[in-house]
């Protein structure tokens, strides 16, 4: 229930800073926020919802993130995505597909010693922007590229 109410509140308030405010006044216990925020982020239906759920406040566009995706994906069920971040102290990489029913595809967390690089494959319902969202030094950065899908990867 807390999550639902929080989502409504986030929508109402445009999401800016409310999460922090709630944490400050104790509506969300700090330990709990980290885990639950991320898991319900996977249910987000729009970019704004996903960014709110991840606690992102207006990510900056960055050239230091390299996102490799095909320009045209013939099969939306298998779209290779590679993200390489040259930002110092990259902690997390999130992969989002803007027009998918659930926007957030995957999160990766990089401990010390692991290179801020990951390759995986995602499903895409239709032509959409693919966004790499990188958390480095506590701040969020992003880069987006469009992938044209000729046959969707969801549904029968």
């Amino acid at each position, binding site marked *: 229930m807390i999550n639902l109410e929080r989502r409504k509140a986030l929508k109402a308030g445009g999401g800016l800073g409310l999460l922090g405010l709630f944490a400050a006044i104790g509506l969300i216990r700090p330990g709990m926020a980290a885990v639950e925020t*991320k*898991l319900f982020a*996977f249910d987000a239906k729009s970019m704004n919802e996903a960014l709110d759920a991840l606690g992102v406040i207006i990510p900056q566009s960055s050239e230091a993130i390299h996102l490799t995706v095909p320009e045209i994906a013939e099969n939306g*069920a*298998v*779209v290779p995505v*590679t993200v390489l971040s040259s930002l110092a102290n990259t902690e997390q990489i999130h992969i989002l*597909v803007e027009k*998918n*029913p*659930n926007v*957030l*595809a*995957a*999160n*990766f*967390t*990089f*401990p010390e*010693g*692991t*290179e801020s*690089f*990951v*390759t*995986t*494959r*995602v*499903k*895409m319902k239709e032509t959409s922007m693919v966004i790499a969202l990188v958390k480095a030094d506590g701040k969020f950065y992003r880069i987006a590229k469009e992938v044209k899908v000729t046959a969707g*990867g*969801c*549904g*029968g």
Partner: protein
Amino acid sequence: MGNPMKIRASVKDGVTEVKVLMQHEMETGLRKDADGKLVPAWHITEVKAQHNGKTVLEGQFGTAVSKNPYLVFRFKGGAPGEKISVNWVDNKGDTRSDEAEIS
């Protein structure tokens, strides 16, 4: 108990590259079967890779990761013969762990 993963790990110039191919349906919960009924979501939610007991990568998957998820990542260190282990958990609570030697 899920099906076994394929894991390949090789070290070059002090950096180990790990490639993992998991076997999982990754059902989105949005697809309908032949009778028009929704097929319930069934997908991996968490993945963790370890080297010598130290976590080298943690991931969380949503429904949009492709069937039989593929993952490549690199970490500093690692030597031939040392073990890499990968573990996943899905939304039904099923789990699978596999190991491979670095070459």
